């Protein structure tokens, strides 16, 4: 059975015989790569467009339909040294992109309007002390109104909408005082202009909008970039399924093209990429990614398999019950629903600040008005002074204080290999005082590794590795990977359930079970020392060697745990694996609190118990069995190798083999929270200085403009310090 690759799912037909595909490409990071790829692909006949997007690490390709197969682009890129895979933009990413470009449009309108109004305001300000005649001033004010009103109506939309949504839900957020301030400032300025008054605040209103939109846009574009990278990572996993398109004909298709009811083939050594039920075949399966249990289980017709299950021995035919992101273990699904509902609604710092801020400011404005009336001012003057209090306190600095820090810190996290899934995760991560780790795939690497490589001579190891390339068994695959072998041996025969054998230079070579190679004694010695390891024996002529294979801890796990403990954060393991394996890992890492054989329900129960004790828990896990606990914890993290479900549930995702990003992220978050608080205090300090001026009726438009831009710059500069994390976590 020869499998064909089928990427037709990803191809878009643009009409007039042109087809389009988007590829995610790994390792594009400079101008050289860009022109190399574009030239290499343009050289293919019939290609009409090959354009690299360096920001998103993607290539857009268009070609004349007919002879070219999309697979040939991927081969061509592989020849050029780049791994590529088609991708389909997920809905979440499309939404982020649309929002970013809307914010940029609003920012453009607000900035151009603010500049032009400022151009009209400066003559008025200088004219007021020289010799401008009132008619000219009114003319300039009317012109300003002409620009300001439509511009504010358009570019204020993000604030007005959000404020309206909040008010309708009987809540308040930072956008409510912003919207009130802007609307009142504009309305008052129009009234003042009609009455030929000296001061109008059109410039202040538009400048405020421009500053706030700049902050929001930067925040949004960072979020968009994170989404794009996450989308690429998902695509580059290149998850495919081997689908039966006829009785005996199979085709390798992307998961997105697999539908419920299809029949797929899961060969030994492969991971199932879909959920389904076995309809034919007998095998042993490793469900460690789903349950955390590393002991293989038997599978036959009727056994349910889940995406992420590793097939160990025989080929299985599976009827798909749900494609990639569909159903899952009913038990986990129920727990997850409960956990998501119970997740305490965390109130973001910005919202807490605005809850305090809005009533105080609005009360101050009201008191100012009543005070001036009590002291004998006219109603008109009193109202104008009250509104100028609102304008000067309009949370320009306050509105930037938090988004600016968030933008800088999510950029810094991004560079260290941590992707943010949810916006408020930084604040929650900052107050973590306990980290709960899953073991399999989180503290350990997701792939198996040879632990006794130093005991085996180099040449023997290499030969064994080349032999191992012929086998699909995951243990053999670990030997092949560890040896770095690239060229498989010829003429190898597989003995079912035993191993592989062949001949080299007239001597027989075997790799497989210890009994198959006559190496039981050596294997037993190894198993006595390390009962959790899997063993694979290698025989070359008369000499025998045995490799111990097990999941290895992440290279810097011990160091990372030590850093956490030193910083006063408690660490604990909650694993679904057997006790000896967990005890061994905990011992190596110096973790005193661990629980083994924990079910998903137990994991949640433990998290809830910790919550009741007042602990702020960071849950780090990768398996499907961790997903409910990830949702229940105060904040959660997943490695990028995790199951779809865990990655979607986690607040943050970290890349690479090391645990350092997890520790570093806590450091960045703590520094960020510190700076957010500082910024809020800076903004409060600015108000403490500016509000008395406004109450005294001294806040002219010039004072408002200077105070606003000064305080905004101050908080932005302070936010830039977030690019370095807290020192004790580095």
């Amino acid at each position, binding site marked *: 059975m020869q499998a064909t690759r089928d990427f037709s799912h990803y191809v878009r037909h643009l009409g007039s015989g042109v087809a389009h595909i988007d590829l995610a490409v790994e390792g594009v990071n400079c101008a050289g790569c860009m022109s190399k790829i574009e030239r290499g692909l*343009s050289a293919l006949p*019939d*290609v*009409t467009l090959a354009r690299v*997007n*360096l*920001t998103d690490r993607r290539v857009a390709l268009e070609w004349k339909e007919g002879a070219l197969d999309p697979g040939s682009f991927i081969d061509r890129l592989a020849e050029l040294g780049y791994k590529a895979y088609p991708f389909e933009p997920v809905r979440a990413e499309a939404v982020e992109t649309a929002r970013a470009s809307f914010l940029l449009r609003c920012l453009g309108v607000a900035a151009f309007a603010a500049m*032009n109004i400022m151009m009209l305001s400066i003559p008025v300000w200088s004219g007021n002390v020289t010799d401008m005649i009132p008619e000219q001033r009114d003319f300039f004010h009317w*012109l300003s109104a002409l*620009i300001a009103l439509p511009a504010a109506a358009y570019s204020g939309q993000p604030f007005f909408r959000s404020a309206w949504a909040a008010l309708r839900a009987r809540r308040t957020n930072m956008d409510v005082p912003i919207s009130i301030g802007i609307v009142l400032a504009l309305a008052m300025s129009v009234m003042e202009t009609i009455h030929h008054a000296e001061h109008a605040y059109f410039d202040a209103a538009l400048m405020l909008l421009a500053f706030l939109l700049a902050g929001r846009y930067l925040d949004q574009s960072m979020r968009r970039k994170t989404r794009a990278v996450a989308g690429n990572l998902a695509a580059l996993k290149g998850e495919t399924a081997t689908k039966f398109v006829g009785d005996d004909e199979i085709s390798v298709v992307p998961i997105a093209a697999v539908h419920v009811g299809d029949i797929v083939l899961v060969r030994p050594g492969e991971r199932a990429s879909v959920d389904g039920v076995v309809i034919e075949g007998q095998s042993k399966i490793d469900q460690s990614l789903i349950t955390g249990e590393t002991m293989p289980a038997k599978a036959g017709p009727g056994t349910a398999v889940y995406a992420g299950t590793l097939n160990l021995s025989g080929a299985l035919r599976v009827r798909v019950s749900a494609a990639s992101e569909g159903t899952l273990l009913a038990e986990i699904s129920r727990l997850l629903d409960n956990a998501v509902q119970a997740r305490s609604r965390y109130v973001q710092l910005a919202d807490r600040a605005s809850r305090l801020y809005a009533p105080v400011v609005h009360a101050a404005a009201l008191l100012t008005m009543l005070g001036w009336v009590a002291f004998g001012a006219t109603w008109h003057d009193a109202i104008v002074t009250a509104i100028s209090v609102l304008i000067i306190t309009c949370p320009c600095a306050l509105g930037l204080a938090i988004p600016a820090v968030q933008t800088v810190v999510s950029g810094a996290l991004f560079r260290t290999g941590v992707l943010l899934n949810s916006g408020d995760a930084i604040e929650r991560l900052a107050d973590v005082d306990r980290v709960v780790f899953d073991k399999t795939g989180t503290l350990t690497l997701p792939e198996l590794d040879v632990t006794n490589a130093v005991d085996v001579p180099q040449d023997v190891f290499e030969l064994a590795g080349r032999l191992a390339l012929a086998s699909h068994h995951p243990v053999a695959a670990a030997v092949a990977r560890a040896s770095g072998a690239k060229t498989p041996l010829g003429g190898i025969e597989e003995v079912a359930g035993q191993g592989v054998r062949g001949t080299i230079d007239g001597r027989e070579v075997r790799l497989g079970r210890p009994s198959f190679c006559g190496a039981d004694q050596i294997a037993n010695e190894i198993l006595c020392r390390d009962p959790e390891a899997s063993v694979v024996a290698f025989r070359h002529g008369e000499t025998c060697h045995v490799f111990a294979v097990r999941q290895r801890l992440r290279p810097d796990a011990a160091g990372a745990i030590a850093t956490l403990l030193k910083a006063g954060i408690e660490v604990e393991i909650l694993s679904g694996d057997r006790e000896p394996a967990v005890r061994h890992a905990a011992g190596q890492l110096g973790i005193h609190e661990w629980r083994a054989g924990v079910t998903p329900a137990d994991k949640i129960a433990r998290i809830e118990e910790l919550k009741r004790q007042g602990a702020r828990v960071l849950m780090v896990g990768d398996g499907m069995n961790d997903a409910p606990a990830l949702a229940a914890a105060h904040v959660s993290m997943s490695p990028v190798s995790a199951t779809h479900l865990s990655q979607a549930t986690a607040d943050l995702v970290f890349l690479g083999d090391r645990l350092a990003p997890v520790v570093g992220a806590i450091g960045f978050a703590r520094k960020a929270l510190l700076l957010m608080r500082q910024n809020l205090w800076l903004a409060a300090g600015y108000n403490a200085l500016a509000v008395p001026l406004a109450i005294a009726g001294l806040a002219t438009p010039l004072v408002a403009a200077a105070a606003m831009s000064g305080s905004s710059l101050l908080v932005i500069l302070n936010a830039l310090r977030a690019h370095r994390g807290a020192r004790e976590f580095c």
Partner: protein
Amino acid sequence: MEVLVFLVPLALTLGALGLAGFLWSLKNGQYDDLEGAGWRAIADDEPPVTEEAVSSGVAERR
């Protein structure tokens, strides 16, 4: 001060032109790949455009 009669509309027109230019460039996708655009400016030469599109057009007309 009669000069204002054409100076002010001129200033506003220039502002509007700038805004229109910005919105056009945004719609045209010029902000989609800010990193790549920076590098393209200093690249030695643009990747050669294949003549395929042109020649096929000729072929169809014949």
